[in-house]
């Protein structure tokens, strides 16, 4: 798979989660190395791309940082359709956001893409003093549902790069059976096809 000649792949990654859990902060920390104490609400979805080298494979992430507000919920399929990976983010100081995260996982599972790499990120690990969601609880839930789990902090950068690297590492294994699931974006099918050939 990844050991063969072509070593570029493109992967669509989507971040989902309740508003204010720190999706944008995670992405900005990963893409730009920045952190803002006061991060404005995302409108619709913001698009970023970032390239990672993992095991001699270059993974170009196309990252959709979706808005957590309820009004954008119905639009989420637009962003996660055809995604190779999803990060579901909750805020460890807010148990409601963990409930929402579980709902996102359910929704993604219903999507019926078994090869979707799903990561559960408990963000804001730097304010563990106000913790409302125990790491063990999330860990158990993640195992039961086939996700991998990390507690992160966009503020201190704890586990942020690790999270994305771990996704990148898991990707190639998932790639061969990946379906393009209705993406009609003009420039992508070609890329995708190339990826298949290299992985199969």
């Amino acid at each position, binding site marked *: 798979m990844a050991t063969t000649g072509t070593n570029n792949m493109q992967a669509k990654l989507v971040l989902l989660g309740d*508003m204010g859990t720190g999706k*944008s902060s995670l992405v*900005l920390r990963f893409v730009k190395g920045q952190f803002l104490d006061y*991060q*404005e*609400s*995302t*409108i*619709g*979805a*913001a*698009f*970023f791309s970032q390239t990672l080298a993992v095991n001699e494979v270059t993974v170009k992430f196309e990252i959709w*940082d979706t*808005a957590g*507000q*309820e*009004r*954008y919920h119905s*639009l989420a399929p*637009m962003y996660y359709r055809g995604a190779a990976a999803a990060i579901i983010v909750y805020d460890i100081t807010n148990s409601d956001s963990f409930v929402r995260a579980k709902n996102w996982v359910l929704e993604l599972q219903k999507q019926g893409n078994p090869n979707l790499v799903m990561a559960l990120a408990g963000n804001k690990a730097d304010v563990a003093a106000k913790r409302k969601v125990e790491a063990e609880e999330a860990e158990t839930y993640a195992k039961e549902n086939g996700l991998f789990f990390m507690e992160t902090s966009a503020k201190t950068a704890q586990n942020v790069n690790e999270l994305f690297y771990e996704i990148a590492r898991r990707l190639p294994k998932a790639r061969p059976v990946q379906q393009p699931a209705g*993406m*009609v*974006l*003009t*420039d*992508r099918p070609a890329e995708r096809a190339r990826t298949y050939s290299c992985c199969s």
Partner: protein
Amino acid sequence: METDSARESGEEENGFTQPEIGDDDIDNVAEDFRDGLGLLSPKEKTMEERRNGTLDSDNDSDDNSRIRTVDENGNADDSSRIEVEEGQSDSSRIEVEEGQSDSSRIEVEEGQADSNRQIAEFSSENNNFVEGHKEISEAREHLEDDFSEQEIEVEAPTSPSSSGYAGGRGSSSAASIGSASGSEEIRDALRSGDGVTECFGNGNGEHRGQASWAHGKRYSNEDETSISWRKRKKHFFVLSHSGKPIYSRYGDEHKLAGFSATLQAIVSFVENGGDHIKLVRAGNHQIIFLVKGPIYLVCISCTEEPFQALKGQLELLYDQMLLILTKSIDKCFEKNSKFDMTPLLGGTDVVFSSLIHAFSWNPATYLHAYTCLPLRHSTRQAAGAILQDVADSGVLFAILMCRHKVISLFGAQKAILHPDDMLLLSNFVLSSESFRTSESFSPICLPQFNPMAFLYAYVQYLGVDTYLMLLTTDSDSFFHLKECRIRIENVLVKSNVLSEVQRSMLDGCLRVEDLPGDPTLPSDSLSFRLRRDKNLQVAGSSTGTGRNTGIGGPAGLWHFMYRSNYLDQYVASEFSPPINSRNAQKRLFRAYQKLHTSMHDKDVGPHKMQYRKDENYVLLCWITQEFELYAAFDPLAEKSSAITVCNRVCQWLRDVESEIFLLEASPLSW
């Protein structure tokens, strides 16, 4: 200290921009003017009914007001000027121009406090109007302080509603000490933090800096029991027909549930009687209601803005909500009348507060026109060409803007972009910081285009203030739009459009000082360009340069605003001294707004021309089929020279129209 903060609290930019030029024949203009005057409708009651005899002093000011007729020989002009200079004016007067006593119209100033008149005297003695002017404002600040203090003492619960929205301004007391509209206006201006009120230090003054709206909800700890909340000059509420709060400008919506329910009760009480409530006047306050299906919008204001203007603001507020959610939100209420809409608007406070802020600086909010960034014709054409190119490839609208000014735009065939939609869209993008961090793809609805459906907007900043918006109906076309953006950006960089835009932002727009002298000379746009070069040299030293000694333009022209009715675009001059403080700018903005409303008043109008004189300015408004011109002059300006200058302004704008207007915008509505 309060006044200082009030002064700082002005708007972020002078938001005035440009309209377009009509084809008026210069030679005929003066005649038109007279004709226009001849057609002035009979005596408009500029005196607002707001006092309605609710206060003792109201009657006083009515009594004191008198109507003066100015006859054609212009003597009256002189005498009116004398009044100003000598401070003999009675507390109100109505000026009638050109001896048409019956077709009079125009200004009423009500019972000014004596002290104000003394100030006027003082200024004329000084013979230096600018200084005098400043002193007037200072003295007014004192006055204002006095009023505020008195208000504190006498704040009486004249509440129009059971939950006690206590006519927060203590209006009766203020009025009884002789401050009628004049002092209202002053107070208004002094507090001008776009109507953010707290008059006497409740300690929040310093938050009212220019960008204060940019932090979303302010004062969220307030509720209807807070004195500071009651003191706000201008409240906006949105609630559902079941009385659930949806939005409040000040205070936390949820804490205002009781107040919302009261508003809802008022609306439904009147509706049960088979009628619709529009307006309640209570002391200085107007309470305006707008019912949009299951959504009620309410404005409570003591800013003395005309009812029509405030209603228009509520309409825009509603449309801004539609831009975020579409009108299909009504269905949620059909399914569940107790539906709670607040979660759906999560994170959008900043959009609304920025729009409400625009109500006090952006003329687009009542002119229903947009404004363009001044650019060389060739530059704008270059930008337009590439936008047209992408618009042909399946993009519905391609809009390139710099702050609230349009650089260029293009729509697909038959697609019509309404100026109000542009205002709301640019407000949405500018107020949401997240658009600046990355490319975004977001559903939006253009209420005038189609209130039921979402469009998808690709938004990307190409510079500090320059941003590109590509709208499409296809939710899957992000990557196509991204490609379009790359193509557009390449072209714009290569053709130097972006650097031209930066330069234009620094240069600003038209300045009254640059008004060409003699319209009969073969004029080109030289002066405008020359002015730009001159500006480059003095770049940075914005004020205090020798040429701005406070006299404004020719014949005391201080400012003008011109709306092209064919293009739906407007242009406004930069603010020049003495209109350089935030307060003065806001006062002028409100004066224009009032003028605009009275010119378009359906009951007594529409009018073609209006000439108003008060202690602040001479205001002249002139409406033809092609354009609307609003101009402000020194209060001592002669009427005849003012008219001449207006003609020159029109000529000037016609000469530079290719630079200040977007002339190729064929797909726009007209």
